């Protein structure tokens, strides 16, 4: 029976993006890396309270960069879940605090005020500039962020320079003259260790039929303890 080995690669891109700042309970994230296309599925009230949707599922986390809580007239208000929040403290927004709607070129989280949800709500400051949030991507979700290639599609490996090696695969498009490549940046002159690791994966029958996270740059997890010292993963997928 044919049992290939499935090699998992993810890019090591930056995981965070800042929101715009307004004073209307909106947290707007414009399209842009790593959210090249903001999520296209809404989180409605039933998702918020029922624990469903991509926010509850942990795809992203949302943080208020600096609580404004200096006893002035424009402070943030926090639900009981957050306890006592110090001025300028970072605050992790609970998924039950927000609904979400996809916009055109952006995505909008709408925070519940404390009056609307006394436990998880956050009432924004009346001063827009105090309402800076950061959205963090916790798992890859878009094309070019992660790829799985069957080991049988390896065409070869090629050194680029002292610290880069390119793994070359048959293209996902199956076009005659194109390729998928994964370029790994590693310790100087460690190519032989990288090649040995690939050979270990492909030749080991225990790998057959399994997904092997060879270079999960997103989570900085590398096969076999990363003997080659991989630091960067760059995907070039034939689209």
């Amino acid at each position, binding site marked *: *029976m*044919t*049992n*290939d080995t*499935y090699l*998992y690669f993810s890019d090591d891109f930056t995981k965070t993006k800042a929101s715009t700042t307004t004073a209307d309970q909106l947290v707007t994230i414009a399209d842009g890396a790593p959210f090249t*296309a903001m*999520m*296209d*599925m809404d989180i409605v009230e039933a998702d918020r309270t029922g624990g*469903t*949707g*991509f*926010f509850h*599922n*942990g*795809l992203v986390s949302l943080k208020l960069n600096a609580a404004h809580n200096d006893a002035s007239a424009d402070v943030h208000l926090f639900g009981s879940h957050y306890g006592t929040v110090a001025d300028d403290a970072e605050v992790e927004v609970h998924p039950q605090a927000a609904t979400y709607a996809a916009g055109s070129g952006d995505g909008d989280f709408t925070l519940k005020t404390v009056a609307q949800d006394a436990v998880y709500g956050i009432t924004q400051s009346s001063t827009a500039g105090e309402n800076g949030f950061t959205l963090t991507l916790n*798992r*890859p*979700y*878009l*094309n*070019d*962020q*992660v*790829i*799985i*290639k*069957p080991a*049988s*599609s390896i065409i070869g490996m090629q050194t680029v320079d002292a610290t880069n090696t390119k793994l070359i*695969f*048959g*293209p*996902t*498009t*199956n*076009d*005659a003259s194109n390729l*998928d490549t994964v370029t790994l940046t590693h310790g100087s002159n460690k190519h032989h260790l990288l090649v040995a690791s690939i050979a270990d994966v492909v030749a080991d029958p225990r790998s*057959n*039929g*399994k*997904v092997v996270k060879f270079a999960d740059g997103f989570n900085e997890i590398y096969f076999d303890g990363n003997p080659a010292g991989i630091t960067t993963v760059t995907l070039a*997928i034939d689209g």
Partner: protein
Amino acid sequence: MKKFAYFQDAADAAGKAALLPLDNYLGCEPTVAGVASFRLFFSKVNNAADRSQVVINANNGRTVEAIESVHAALGANNKNGVVVIGDNIDTTFTNLEHVASCGAFTA
């Protein structure tokens, strides 16, 4: 023995189901937009130098987990060599973990 992956995204009709040999599997990546789907690529079913693809819809925000679930199924040593990845019309069939449904098949 060859292994095949089976997909069905809607009621029996032309182009709504496919049985594809894993020997022709090219790879997988998430879709261009959204949070809930990814594509499996195979050599073109008409044998042209092109690809056929199947969209798999994951549970909301669980794309990577669904990808791993599908590949675990592809690699399993099942009895008859046919791995059902997604079937939207067989009411007795439960899709793989984190897989919500089988999306469109593009021959």
